[in-house]
């Protein structure tokens, strides 16, 4: 019996060893590329007819009111391969039966895809409760110079806690939209704090604004404390303001903002709640 046990143990070990090595071998033979959209959710999809291209829009999460980082995947509908060289321009549209308006957006910075995807953004300034959002995507495939436009409908939800706010400046009576650019990962520690500011010029035009001075204070409302050594966001490029926020623990943090233009405080009533 003792011997039998020994034999079974040895055999099991040998089997285990071969199976481990076997797996390694087959792994090495696999050559297919990993799917570039792993980890993203598809929030809209359609065809850009003239360009013979399928347009899929991905994001980390389903679309919400605020700054959405988007990743567009183009697929040649003939070869079924990713299009990696294309000019893309966006045009968000909100149809509210009596009227329609657009939203702030950022086209892909380059005509060259990054890992098969074209990063861009749209800042949806209201949810689909008020009407129907669609995202116009104009595509020019630089490989064959074919152009076309896709109109993709999508659902925009209000997040549990607002990730953007708007205010009307007393200086120029213009409406400004301020959105929180979500970071990759939030830690207990020092985090990048990135905001984006857009100014409404017309129903269809929301250019980036670099004219504000932003200060902020993070607090934990449930405990009544803040955190030290925060860095106010300053404008870097394209309406993006970057600073540092220190979270001393997990939980819900309230970021209260004061926005100024020159010496005039233009808004000090808004805050963004952030939970991690």
């Amino acid at each position, binding site marked *: 019996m003792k011997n039998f046990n020994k034999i079974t143990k040895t055999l099991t070990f040998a089997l285990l060893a071969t199976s481990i090595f076997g797996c390694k071998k087959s792994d090495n033979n696999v050559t297919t590329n990993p799917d570039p959209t792993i980890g993203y959710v598809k929030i809209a999809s359609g065809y850009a007819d003239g360009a013979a291209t399928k347009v899929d829009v991905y994001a980390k999460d389903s679309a919400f009111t605020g700054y959405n980082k988007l990743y567009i995947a183009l697929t040649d509908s003939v070869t079924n391969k990713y299009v990696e060289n294309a000019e893309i321009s966006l045009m968000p549209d909100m149809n509210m039966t009596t009227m329609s308006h657009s939203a702030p957006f950022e086209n892909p910075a380059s005509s060259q895809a990054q890992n098969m995807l074209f990063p861009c953004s749209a800042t949806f300034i209201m949810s689909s409760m008020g009407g129907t959002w669609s995202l116009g995507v104009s595509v020019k495939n630089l490989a064959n110079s074919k152009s076309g436009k896709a109109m993709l409908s999508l659902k925009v939800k209000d997040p549990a806690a607002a990730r953007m706010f708007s205010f009307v400046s007393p200086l120029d009576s213009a409406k400004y939209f301020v959105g929180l650019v979500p970071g990759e990962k939030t*830690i*207990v*520690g*020092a985090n990048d704090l990135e905001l984006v500011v857009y100014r409404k010029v017309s129903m269809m035009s929301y250019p980036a604004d670099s004219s504000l001075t932003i200060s902020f204070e993070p607090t*934990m409302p*449930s*405990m*009544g*404390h*803040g*955190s*030290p*050594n925060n860095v106010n966001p300053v404008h870097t490029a394209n309406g993006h303001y970057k600073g540092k926020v*220190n*979270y*001393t*623990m*997990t*939980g*819900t943090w309230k970021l209260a903002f004061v926005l100024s233009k020159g010496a005039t405080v233009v808004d000090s009533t808004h805050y963004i709640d952030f*939970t991690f």
Partner: protein
Amino acid sequence: MRVRIILALAALPLFAYGQESGHKDTVVEMNEVVVRGMLSDQTRQIKDFYVANKAATTEDILARMPEVTMVRRGSYGSEPLLRTYNSGQVSVLIDGMRIHGACTDKMDPATVYVEPQNLKGINIQTSGAAQVGSNVGGTVDLRLREPVCGCERPVSGALSSGYQSAAGYFYESGQLSFSKERWAIRTNATYRKAGDYRAGGGAVVANSRYEKMNAGLSAIYKLNESWNMKADFLYDDGYFIGYPALPMDVGYAAARIASLSVMKWKPESRWERMQYKVYGNTVYHLMDDTHRPNVAMHMDMPGRSTTVGTFGEAALRLGARRHLMLRGDVSATDLYASMTMYQPGQPDMYMLTWPDNRTIQSGIAATYTVRPDTQSSVVITTRIDQFTSLLTTQDARDQLTVLQEHPETSVNRLLKNLSVAYSRDLSGRVRAVATAAYAERMPTQSELYGFYLFNAFDNYDYIGRTDLKTENAYKGDMSLSYSTSDVLVSLAAFASRVNNYIMGLYEPTWGTMTIGALGVKRYANMGYGNMAGAEAAFVWKAPRGTQVVSTFRYNYGADDKRTPLPLINPFRNISSVRKKTGRWTTQLDAEMALRQDRVNVAAREVKTPDFFKANVRVAYATMYRLTAFTIEGGCENIFDAAYREHTDWGRVYRPGRNIYVQVNCSF
């Protein structure tokens, strides 16, 4: 004044039946209390005086020593400090092993893990440089009892049971030993359970109860005539330990301590004594705020410390008048503590209070003793330690970015220590010792990495920093003793300057984290601190079985702006008179301290009034066949004084009149 290295004192039991029953290893007796300061000579006479009653805890024993200051936050788990030094400046070891508490609020000093019945002795080093570890304030080493081979009776044991009225306190302990020619085993267990105690004047102190269990197992095996092998295991569980001076209690605390040693003892050999030990210990700690009223927010605060280490020691005789003691040690301690706060309807709030960190220490030490003539001796001690502290997880490193943009998460220090002691017999009865020393210490993990650690003493949140300069001290000691066969008088005085003194510095721009905290303090080097003090002892073996013991101490501490340092005890005296008549022993104790008006306002310290406290103790001892029985009883704090000592936190009064009774039997 490290002249006496280790005194191998014979048992001097309170009752002489230990010898009559023919075995040395009686249960609740401590064989030796070695104070490697002024008191080394008279320890023999006053050992029993420290062990006031047999239900006394190790911290009760320590509290009676003049060079020890206890920082008290509850009925149990008081933190031992030496002279004027604070807890970061003093090392507490168990049998030479390093052990780190797992509580950010210092609720678990290492002294709670060794019960007196498991205590062979306490080595206290106050003057000079420490051979066992780099520190500026001194070392408390709790030496564990060893099983004894070749006892007359192969099986021996003891049982004790006691009750104390002030806290409705029960104490049960048992000990069992087996002794053969080549091997021996000793086991012991102690259970203590105390309710909320009644303070002097009658008020019951809420959340002062505690319950704990301690057990030990030790085995020794004779490898040959001079070499022994020994294994030790200590088990300690605290189920609830109340801390009335803190905003929360200990819900559960567990310590497991294990070691394996080989030891040589051969006085006629050139290498007289050698010891090599490997050890490991882990402490787990869980705080509990569920028994407190009006808790603003419930929180869990677990902590864990794990230490592994090894050391080797050797005593080498270089000639008739020259000795060398060598020691080398290496250890690593992992430490972690976190806090999770709960607010209904909100996500849990989690942070690290001790971000996961590891401290690796390696040191070598040598003590050289030379006796140029029969009257004098010179002892030179040196020690070098290499310390590295680092953060071990990404979460820990991330969290530190709140405090510093590019945190130096790894801290390296080379610590140097040197002391020279000169001792001389001025006449047959008078001996003088002078010591000069330089010592350095590593900042504590709280001082390096502490993250919003709430300090209930001053109501501030404390934050560490990794760029602290090394604290160092220049120390000087003088002592004089006069001894005859009946009388011993000794007097010691010390003075030291601690440079780069580490203290919390108020940061007015930083917001607090703890609800109700007054502000944030960050550890910083504060110039220097000046400290001085004196201790005296008087022992008189009067005729007709009477013995008188009296100890005195006075401490002084001030920073470089002459502001008093916090937690400096005032003048104190403890005196005892004991009379032995046949089987009866009677003892009267008086404890008193003067008022302390020198307080540190920044630490929100308050003045402490003087107090006087008296105790009476009576014991009766008898034998039945081979079993020795003792019955002890007494009354502590007879006059029910409402008092506190200056180093007690939270202005909580100590227990009032306490009547106790204790029955012991040993066979």
